[in-house]
């Protein structure tokens, strides 16, 4: 009986975690971002495993606090948040739905095939990144380092808008 109750709760926990917005990009949740890796009950303690997007991302601390706050709101007080490095976070974990949410929000989503993209050591501007405003692929990389660790700054040569591109890692 207890086990059945706990099994329900794990999916419930995933649901509530899926309601916590990313602190920087509020249109997607921590689950959609791929930061939450596992949810488990260990006896009476809830263990949540998360992985950092970028090792120095200042939002990680914020995400942990948001998770803590949300769990307490549900009356869950006995929990532990573990930080896991392996496997390393990758933008490949984002679903197409998540990517389309990013685009609607004005951020060009990461392109697929991360491994090929990040491997080049000499100038390798992302190609055919569509402008989230006008969909033109006539775009130009301004800087691989943008407003947050996870974004590059690009510019559309057609509508002339500068935009963020969620870079592949």
């Amino acid at each position: 009986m207890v086990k059945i109750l706990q099994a329900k709760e794990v999916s419930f926990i995933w649901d509530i975690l899926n309601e916590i917005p990313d602190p920087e990009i509020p249109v997607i949740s921590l689950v959609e971002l791929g930061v939450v890796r596992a949810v488990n009950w260990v006896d009476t303690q809830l263990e949540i495993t998360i992985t950092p997007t970028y090792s120095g991302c200042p939002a990680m601390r914020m995400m942990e606090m948001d998770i803590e706050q949300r769990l307490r709101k549900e009356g869950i007080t006995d929990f532990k948040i573990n930080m896991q490095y392996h496997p390393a976070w990758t933008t490949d974990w984002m679903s197409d739905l998540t990517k389309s949410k990013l685009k609607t929000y004005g951020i060009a989503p990461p392109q697929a095939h991360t491994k090929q993209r990040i491997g080049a050591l000499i100038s390798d501007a992302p190609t055919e990144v569509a402008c989230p405003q006008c969909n033109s692929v006539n775009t130009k990389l301004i800087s691989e380092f943008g407003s947050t660790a996870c974004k590059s700054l690009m510019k559309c040569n057609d509508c002339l808008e500068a935009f963020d591109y969620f870079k592949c890692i």
Partner: protein
Amino acid sequence: MNSQASLFQYILKIADNQLILGHRLSEQCSKGPFLEEDIACSNIALDLIGAANSLYIYAAAIEGENKTEDDLVFLRSERAFKNVLLVEQPNTDFAYIMCRQFLFDTYDYFFQQALQKSNDQTLAAIAAKTIKESTYHLRHSGNWIIRLGDGTPESNLRLKNAFTNLWCYVDELFEQDAAELDLVAQGIAVDTQSIKTQFTSHIAEIMQTAGMEIPSGIFMQSGGKKGVHTEHLGFLLAEMQSVHRSFPGVKW
């Protein structure tokens, strides 16, 4: 030295390089040549300090003295820091800063790539995370080397001077003491000799594209890995540790 103690020292060497270079680069925040570059340098500084943070958490656990990552960063004195001399060199002009980044980024890229194969699973996992970021760093500094070297006579001259002044710190990157070689034998530490060829050929390729010549006849300096630093590290630490020393135990 027992193996836990040598592992602790080894993690510190990796972490201290990342931290000190990250701090140096963070000093450039708001002083970049233009806004996008300013943001890039701050982002890279953040990546480096973040990677150091993961390593210090692990180092503290290995040391087993109930210390935190903050203790290791803010409460150690100069001689206890094991970073290479290259990363503590103070910022001068932008060409110098990019040259320092480029030399370290190239080393770090091949180092992290090799460290992913470590028998130590935590080090391997942190390296697998770090390498993704290191790739962006190396592309960034490599592009600047080409742009500055192949730019105006002024930028070329400044970059040439930077390489001349920083080249003496290159060999230290590959130095390994007996304790570290012991970790190499156990499959934990990276055999730096195994990445030296890749390092040299990438540096040569980029420098050639940039129209730069590799400096010759330079007397090599070392000491950082043993805790014997240039005078610059003390000043850096004094600033970096000042808040924590004024308000012991402060958290932010």
